[in-house]
């Protein structure tokens, strides 16, 4: 039993050789990123334009929404003040 141990170790190492060789080989279909054809590389410009445009549009829309809400509150206030003034005038 003790004599068979080294034999088993050598046998298991022998079995592992194909797996090690396969791991050393680059996987089939692998292409380094700097050798990719131009068509497979995603262009950066549309992404940058989309990011900047989104920020600008969102900020402008938010500014317009504050403006609109402020205008509505101010017109409500003027109407209410007029109504209150008329009521106190009629008393």
């Amino acid at each position, binding site marked *: 039993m003790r004599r068979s141990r080294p034999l088993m170790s050598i046998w298991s190492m022998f079995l592992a050789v194909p797996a090690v060789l396969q791991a050393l080989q680059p996987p089939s279909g692998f292409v380094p990123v700097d050798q990719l054809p131009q068509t497979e590389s995603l262009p*950066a*410009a549309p992404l*940058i334009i989309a*990011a900047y445009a*989104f920020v600008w549009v969102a900020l402008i829309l*938010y500014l317009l929404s504050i403006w609109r809400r402020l205008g509505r*509150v101010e017109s409500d*206030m003027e109407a*209410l003040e007029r109504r209150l003034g008329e009521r106190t005038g009629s008393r």
Partner: protein
Amino acid sequence: MAAGSMRTGAAVRRAGGLRRAFVPLAIVSGAMLAYSPIVVAHAAYEPTMGLVSKIFYYHVPSWFAMFTAVFTCGIASALYLIRGTPRADRVAVSAGELAALFGLLGLVTGPLWARKAWGVWWQWDARLTMAFLLELIFLAYLLVRRYGGPGSDKLAAAMAVFGMANVPFVYVSVNIWRTIHPTTQVVPTLGPGMRGAFWYCVAAFMLLYSLLFAARVRLEEERARLDALHLAGQD
């Protein structure tokens, strides 16, 4: 009584000064933001990512503004919970809305950058997930404020305090759980070709944030005046 009227007078003078400064500052802010793409175009490229790294100049300042808004909202909410001052509540709701807005800008610009730099739109890593949750907390804050009914202002204030407590975790998450997102060391170690453009964009975003915040607080104060006028009319 005299102290109260003096305080009110000072507040009115301060509000008048702010209102006068608003238009020139809005022009400066608009001009800074309009000029920012030119500043960014002249800035140096990040060597590994190339052109797409230019999104960085809008993405990171959006988060700076978001975190400022979250802290403003959280501190004002804590004050509202402790003292019950209506002005603190008005400041909190104004900052809460801006936190949701700037968070949205960060969450949209990030994936546009990631698509090219990482090859995916989104990654459920610690930083991105926590930032997304922070945005959800502030969207929930706004929904509770709008549809929660009576007493929802206190509930929302507590949510904002928890939202604020989340910010340090969001910030350090990239250093604790190392994933694909860059660490917090990027900004302090920016090269001289990128530093100027970056801080220019931060200044533009922070000025814009301050102006939007001032306008939003004014809206809340006008609404409070309108409510007071309605109550006076009913008496």
